[in-house]
């Protein structure tokens, strides 16, 4: 594999770009992990964490002030099971932070002790990087945004009451009292569920449901009818016309929230499966492109910047040919983890195709984006991916293009980034190149 011969952006833009990065790219809170008592492996695990985009704090000096400070800074801890009193340490930390216990002993008694001490995960030494990254990602995963419900009911008092009840249960709710405004509302804000009254003047709720279902975009959004209609025939018909559930009025707010949660969560989980790549958990090609178009429109409205990076693994075919497809899969998973961990939560990562990944950096001009990608590139090239007894070094190239204020379309921006990617490959790979327009 080629050595790290890409010059960093800092080389060309000393000082200025760093300042720029501070101003225009609000940082994420540091992703710090506390590493304790894995002995000689502490530094190795710290290096591994840093390559995945995390910061490692090492060591333990007895329970005193520094320990409390470390605990406050870290969002998770990695504890070596060989450390004397490892389970006691785990027990104390686990009350405040998730703990990953690293052990050479893969026995049931050890796992039982770990579980009793409250360890969130047990990893075997030598540590599988992909597994470690997956756990850490789960710990930092953004708290799911509140589920949104669109309430359509001509009785505004009742609709407002449902809204208050659902908001109290942690949802966000929007109320519409005129059925004809449903489509417009659904186009502008994506509801996770529609709560639809049946007996409304002007348009019958069942007709409204049919209208909603006519649009492919709304096909997976659950519709829950809510009506004082007591006839079983009407309930049956409502379900046939695309309703997922039927709540009979009068309804108690707690019961309403429970039904809505059940339906909405299932729909969101299903949507996730539909939109995400099963190997890496990243957005698939089409949802990634849709997201890019959506973010570009948003940038145009707000005048903010956006940077797109198209990432392609260098000589991926060689990895597959030399080490097998399982090794290739591990490379893809490791890259996915390393991108997600090294970026902010608001940035968007997708698997664009085979070994090509797309990254959208929000509120970031391309000059700053170049720095971000170069850092990711440097980290990834330093990783040694363990697969089937081999330690594989892999690099990637990035094509960067900026859009947003100027009103570039998604297709045009992707073409520009692809052009830059081609230039990076031609220029010797393991490089980041910005499209010059």
């Amino acid at each position: 594999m080629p050595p790290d011969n890409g010059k960093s952006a800092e080389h060309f833009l000393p000082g200025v770009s760093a300042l720029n990065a501070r101003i225009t790219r609000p940082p994420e809170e540091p992703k710090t992990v506390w590493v304790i008592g894995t002995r000689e492996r502490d530094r190795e695990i710290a290096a591994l964490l840093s390559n995945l985009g995390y910061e490692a704090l090492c060591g333990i000096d007895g329970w005193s002030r520094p320990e409390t400070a470390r605990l406050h800074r870290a969002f998770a801890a990695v504890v070596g099971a060989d450390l004397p009193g490892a389970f006691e340490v785990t027990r104390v930390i686990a009350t405040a932070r998730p703990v990953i216990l690293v052990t050479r002993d893969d026995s049931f008694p050890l796992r039982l002790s770990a579980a009793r001490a409250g360890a969130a995960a047990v990893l075997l030494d030598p540590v599988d990087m992909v597994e470690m990254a997956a756990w850490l990602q789960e710990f930092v995963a953004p708290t799911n945004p509140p589920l949104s419900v669109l309430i359509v009911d001509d009785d505004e008092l009742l609709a407002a009451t449902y809204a208050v009840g659902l908001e109290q249960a942690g949802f966000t709710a929007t109320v519409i009292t005129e059925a004809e405004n449903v489509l417009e509302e659904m186009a502008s804000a994506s509801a996770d569920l529609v709560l639809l009254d049946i007996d409304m003047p002007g348009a019958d709720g069942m007709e409204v449901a049919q209208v909603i279902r006519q649009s492919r975009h709304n096909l997976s959004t659950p519709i829950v009818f809510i009506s004082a209609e007591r006839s079983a025939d009407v309930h049956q018909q409502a379900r046939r016309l695309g309703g997922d559930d039927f709540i009979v009025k009068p309804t108690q707010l707690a019961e309403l929230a429970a039904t809505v949660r059940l339906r909405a969560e299932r729909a969101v989980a299903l949507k996730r499966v539909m939109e995400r790549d099963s190997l890496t958990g990243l957005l698939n090609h089409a949802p990634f492109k849709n997201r890019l178009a959506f973010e570009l429109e948003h940038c145009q409205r707000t005048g903010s910047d956006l940077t797109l990076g198209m990432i392609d693994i260098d000589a991926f075919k060689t990895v597959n040919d030399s080490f097998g497809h399982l090794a290739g899969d591990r490379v893809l998973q490791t890259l996915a983890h390393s991108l997600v961990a090294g970026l902010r939560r608001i940035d968007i990562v997708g698997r664009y195709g085979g070994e090509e990944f797309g990254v959208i950096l929000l509120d970031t001009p391309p000059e700053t984006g170049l720095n971000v990608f170069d850092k990711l590139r440097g980290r990834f090239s330093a990783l040694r991916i363990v697969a089937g007894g081999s330690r594989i070094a892999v690099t990637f190239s990035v094509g960067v293009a900026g859009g947003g204020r100027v009103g570039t379309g998604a297709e045009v921006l992707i073409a520009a980034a692809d052009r830059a990617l081609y230039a990076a490959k031609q220029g010797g790979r393991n490089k980041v190149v910005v499209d010059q327009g």
Partner: protein
Amino acid sequence: MIAADAAIADLRRRFRQRAFEDAAEIERLAEGLEAAAPDVGTREYVRRVAHKLAGAAGTFGFASIGDCAAQLEDMAVSPETDAEVAEACRTVAVQIRGAITADIS
């Protein structure tokens, strides 16, 4: 939580006010049904008002209003005579006022 409770209390207060208006409306409809030649749409109108009340009252904690409104809704589309529906309307209006007044005091 406190804000939500206040919001619910306010919505409930508005519901009570509207229920009083509904009671008056239902009585006006009863008069209409008792006229020599009632309007064709009057019973459908009774059904509508009763339906809305039946759906909402329970959520605001007035199950008894909801129940009698539901009966009135069914009656409006039944073969019962206009006079009988009018009588039911008056009974429901009295029940609404009774339940709301009891709740306020």
